[in-house]
């Protein structure tokens, strides 16, 4: 197992290099010279040159990349163009909000997804099963900004149970979590159901019943652990998606998260912030996938991820 983790970590290196190259090229592929933007359109040539020198933009591209990496490893993404505050400080404050939102959303998704999936599978083809799956289909096809707006309209503005904006208190957090987590819950529910149905027909389930195992134990001990194996992968992919997908939810609820930071920075051409934020999201995505692989491996002793 340790060997497996070490190997997976080593395999991460090329992935991370790829990610950094992509993020790095963002700055260079977007039209407009950052130095010009910083200095202002009408700034004299000398000012632009000075800024280029300060940012290292006058150096050959591979040196620039190398500098970018070595700084990034030290969590130094430069300073924001807007306010000259270190980019990392911007990100740090926002990242945990986004992470918190995503984690809660995935917990919401996993909890309700598994619950609905298992109930549906156990009562397969019943009215309950069919209705749950129809609901899941709705959850899946609803755009989450629309769901967010509807939730605000009903629960915040009409019933006044929750607050329509912000992040931090329970009253503020519930609606964004539901908004962000619903689609995941729906996907996980559908996946769990089909995976459970697959497993319930397996010979070893019959073996367990023939042994005198209680039906509840058959479902939760013998079937679920097997059924979870494909679900874990989906959860991992979903979580990565949530981190990135939080952008919309954050906008709808006016939450100061990473997503909103990126949008604001893009609008203001604050390249260092955009770069840093995207890099952080990408690296988190990669790490989440690693965790998924490891838990997959722990669940399923058979896979050999050679």
């Amino acid at each position: 197992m340790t060997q497996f983790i070490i190997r997976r970590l080593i395999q991460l290196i090329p992935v991370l290099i790829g990610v950094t190259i992509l993020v790095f090229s963002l700055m260079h592929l977007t039209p407009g010279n950052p130095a010009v933007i910083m200095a202002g359109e009408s700034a004299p040539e000398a000012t632009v040159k000075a800024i280029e020198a300060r940012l290292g933009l006058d150096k050959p591209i591979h040196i620039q990349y190398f500098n970018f990496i070595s700084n990034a490893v030290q969590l130094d993404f430069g300073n924001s163009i807007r306010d000259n505050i270190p980019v990392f400080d911007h990100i740090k404050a926002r990242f945990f909000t986004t992470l918190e939102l995503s984690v809660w959303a995935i917990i919401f998704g996993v909890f309700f997804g598994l619950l609905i999936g298992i109930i549906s599978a156990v009562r397969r083809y019943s009215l309950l099963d069919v209705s749950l799956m129809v609901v899941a289909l709705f959850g899946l096809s609803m755009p989450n900004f629309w769901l967010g707006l509807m939730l605000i309209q009903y629960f915040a503005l009409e019933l006044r149970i929750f607050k329509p904006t912000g992040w931090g208190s329970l009253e503020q957090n519930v609606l964004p979590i539901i908004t962000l987590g619903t689609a995941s819950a729906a996907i996980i529910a559908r996946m769990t159901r089909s995976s459970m149905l697959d497993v319930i027909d397996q010979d070893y389930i019959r073996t367990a019943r023939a042994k005198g195992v209680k039906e509840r134990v058959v479902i939760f001990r013998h079937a679920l652990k097997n059924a979870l194996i494909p679900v874990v992968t989906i959860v991992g992919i979903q979580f990565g998606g949530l981190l990135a997908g939080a952008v919309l939810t954050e906008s709808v609820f006016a939450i100061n998260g990473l997503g909103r930071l990126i949008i604001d920075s893009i609008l203001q051409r604050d390249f260092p912030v955009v770069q840093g934020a995207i890099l952080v999201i990408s690296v988190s995505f990669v790490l989440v996938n690693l965790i998924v692989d490891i838990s997959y491996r722990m669940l399923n002793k058979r896979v050999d991820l050679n």
Partner: protein
Amino acid sequence: MKTEINQENILEINDLRTSFFVGKNEVKAVDGVTFQVPKGKTLGIVGESGSGKSITSLSILRLIDEPGKIVGGSINFKGEDLTKVSMSRMRQIRGNEISMIFQEPMTSLNPVYTIGQQLREAFKIHQGLGKKEGTKRAIEMLELVGIPSPDKRVNQYPFELSGGMRQRVMIAMALACKPELLIADEPTTALDVTIQAQILELIKELQEEIGMSVIMITHDLGVVAETCDYVAVMYAGNIVEYADVETLFEDPKHPYTVGLLNSLPRHDIEQDELIPIKGNVPAPDEMPTGCRFAPRCPHASEICKTHPELTETKDGNDVRCWIYTPDWDKEEVSVYDK
């Protein structure tokens, strides 16, 4: 067939009917099966695919999945009718008093639990043993079925074992609580012959040691001849012949049994030609109303359009065939021949 309650029988099945309901259709997979399993003996149920032999065995433990259902008859096990006992009583019986092993050792063990965890579960359910004691007993069981270094194997996962070893584990699990009846559903069909020989011998040895009765479900007449004391031949949901093993092979009565033996290619003797049974097993929705074998039977006549009963013959076979009844008219020509 003798139907009186007999102290010498561990299991008596009477007129068992199990059907599958697909839409509005009822498919009668097992349609009026009656047999007994004498204490300490082995009963073979032999038949081809679709004969209902596996459904019969699953019905005994009430392991029939939706949309299947036991629709009639009784399963008398030590004075209790298993079709009527509560589900919790049924669970006490499963794996404890009656155990079952299945055809596919490769898929019959749960892939995500170790051999030990799966064996321990049986001890936990039926004897309330904890982890430590359970593991000890699990190792003993593995040793009993001849698995080398059981203390190491107990911590392995099913995929780390070969097919033959897994079937041994299945047997160990089935015998964990020393059941009085073991139902073996095609236990060696998926295994190579040299491994089959090991497994059949193992079941035989353990049967003698524990003194249990065995129901051996198989399509292989060789396995029947070697392991069984009594044989029930099934065809299309019915038992068509029942006899002790020597009588059945020496003097098969039902045209289907005769046909089976004639179409079996043998490795131990030279045969000129195989005499196959013509035609195919009728589809469930095209089941003839009379004798179900009639459309394939070389002797079928007018009377075979009525369903025959299982009747005792003077040679000791019980046969479901008009030929062995006084109503049979030798002169009549087959109506089924084209």
